[in-house]
């Protein structure tokens, strides 16, 4: 068992989007408990305030990653509050049409909204924060972008067209970016946390049995381990 002092997560600077509910909140709590310095982003100011209040030392940032004009103010607040950045978790997601719709019944605007939140948002925020992540890597750490994906990125589930297509694009973007950024010490992974009892899942499948779904805290555990393993492999420059 690591002591907090030896924990690779201790002092790690992590930003999480969609941090006030579901997997994002679970990751925020788990990483914070391990001594990481955390900033989180969400749209609802009252909820951001409540989560920040419940988690002393965390930095709550109000913003919508699907909006182009919010990206730089978010990035600025992240790096100003943490003094840089080691890990970015792009967790905030949009389902697309609610209720779920067959692709041919999906309005173009709903597909655009899913792409804005699930693809363009992570791309823009990743770009805006890449300087900070690369600076962390030059300092000798491995820095990391984790894009939260879904098995809908790979499997063509009817009714999940907007969400699945946007997550598929995010998955492939992650692979290409990882290949390009590796030489700079920045890794980009996309991870599928599996089905969880979250607000997003409830929107998609309102009659699902919550007992049959993972709790977000359980889904967060392997992701926290992935972060710890990745950043622990520091090259001492």
């Amino acid at each position, binding site marked *: 068992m690591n002591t907090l002092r030896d924990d690779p997560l201790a002092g790690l600077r992590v930003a999480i989007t969609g941090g006030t509910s579901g997997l994002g909140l679970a990751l925020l709590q788990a990483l914070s408990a391990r001594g990481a310095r955390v900033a989180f982003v969400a749209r609802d100011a009252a909820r951001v305030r409540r989560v920040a209040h419940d988690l002393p030392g965390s930095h709550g940032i109000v913003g919508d990653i699907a909006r182009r004009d919010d990206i*730089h103010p978010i990035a*600025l*607040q992240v790096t100003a*509050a943490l003094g840089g950045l080691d890990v970015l978790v792009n967790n905030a997601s949009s389902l697309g049409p609610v209720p779920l719709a067959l692709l041919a019944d999906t309005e173009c605007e709903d597909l655009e909204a899913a792409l804005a939140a699930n693809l363009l948002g992570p791309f823009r925020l990743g770009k805006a924060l890449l*300087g*900070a992540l690369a600076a962390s890597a*030059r300092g000798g750490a491995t820095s990391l972008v984790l894009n939260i994906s879904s098995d809908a990125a790979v499997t063509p589930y009817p009714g999940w067209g907007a969400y699945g297509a946007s997550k598929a694009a995010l998955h492939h973007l992650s692979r290409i970016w990882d290949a390009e950024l590796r030489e*700079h010490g920045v890794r980009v992974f996309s991870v599928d946390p599996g089905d969880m009892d979250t607000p997003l899942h409830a929107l998609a499948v309102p009659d699902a049995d919550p007992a049959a779904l993972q709790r977000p805290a359980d889904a967060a555990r392997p992701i926290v381990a992935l972060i710890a393993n990745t950043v622990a492999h520091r090259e001492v*420059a």
Partner: protein
Amino acid sequence: MRAAAVPIQRPRDARLLVIDRHGELHHAARAQLAHWLRPGDLLVANDAATLPASLHGTHLRSGAAIEVRLAGRPSLQVDAVHDFTAVVFGAGDFRTRTEDRPAPPPLSAGDRLQLGPLQASVVRLLDHPRLVELHVDGDADDIRAGIARHGRPIQYAHLPQALALWDVWTRVAAQPVAFEPPSAGFLIDWQMLHTLRERAIGFATLTHAAGLSSTGDPALDARLPFDEPYHLPASTVRAIADTRRSGGRIVALGTTVTRALEHAAQAGPLRAGEGLANQRLGPHSRLQVVDAIVSGTHEPGSSHHALLQAFVDAAVLRRADAALAAGGYRTHEFGDSVLVENARSSQRSPRQASRTIVRSIERPGFAGLLRPA
């Protein structure tokens, strides 16, 4: 030279005037910068992101509209967001030349300012009616959010369109501590960083809180650059030492990098950590660390231009200025660039005579003598 009036960081036709250590001039494409560096060299950039440091608001006692331009901070510590040095303008915005901007209402200690969501007070005047020490109220997270949402990038009348933050953040922008962009770094993109790697040219960064380049007030402009805090990472100190040991050159990307590295070297061997650059560099300066600089094409008379005289003789710089003018190079932050190799290294003895002349005409008045005829 003509002003670059479009905010494109890497125009495809961007140019680079190379002034080599023999004083020879070469016209080049700026995208080819890596090919003007040698394997084993180290390019050092300023990775500061730029704050939206222009805050419009109201001077509450008079009700007058003002613009506050944050211009300095004592430290880079993340929670040091309450106290700033600031220049205050009267009504109007960047579309009016700073020289023509009305003065703010008379300011005195204790005056309250409403700057969008932010509330601040004037702590004291700093020996000038427009230069103040400012204290911003509130929780650090709220101040950061207020600046992020209400602030706009500081800009000048030569650029007619309003800048967004993405216009002024370099590709390597990290911690947001600069008040104006470290614009020499606009030329970097990830393709160039890849090319540097392929050519075995090192890349390192420091973080330097670049301040204002101009205020429009001659008395204030004469005091620029203000003191600027910087952070020098341990990995950069190591990279510089390794480069030196193997005979490579230290190439500073921008005047802020030069100022920070030379400041850090004043007290002996480079050490990692934070410092406050408070020196001016000019013809009298003997550079300890930097062997070459890549910089914007600054106009004679500016502090940036004076700094270039630490690298080359006045006569060479005068020829370079003439070449920039004749070649139609673009100036200002989105303009073309120069690469200046330090002529004053060990090989510099043949130039001793002219350097003596330059040294004898230090700061006051020298800029006028160097203007192209």
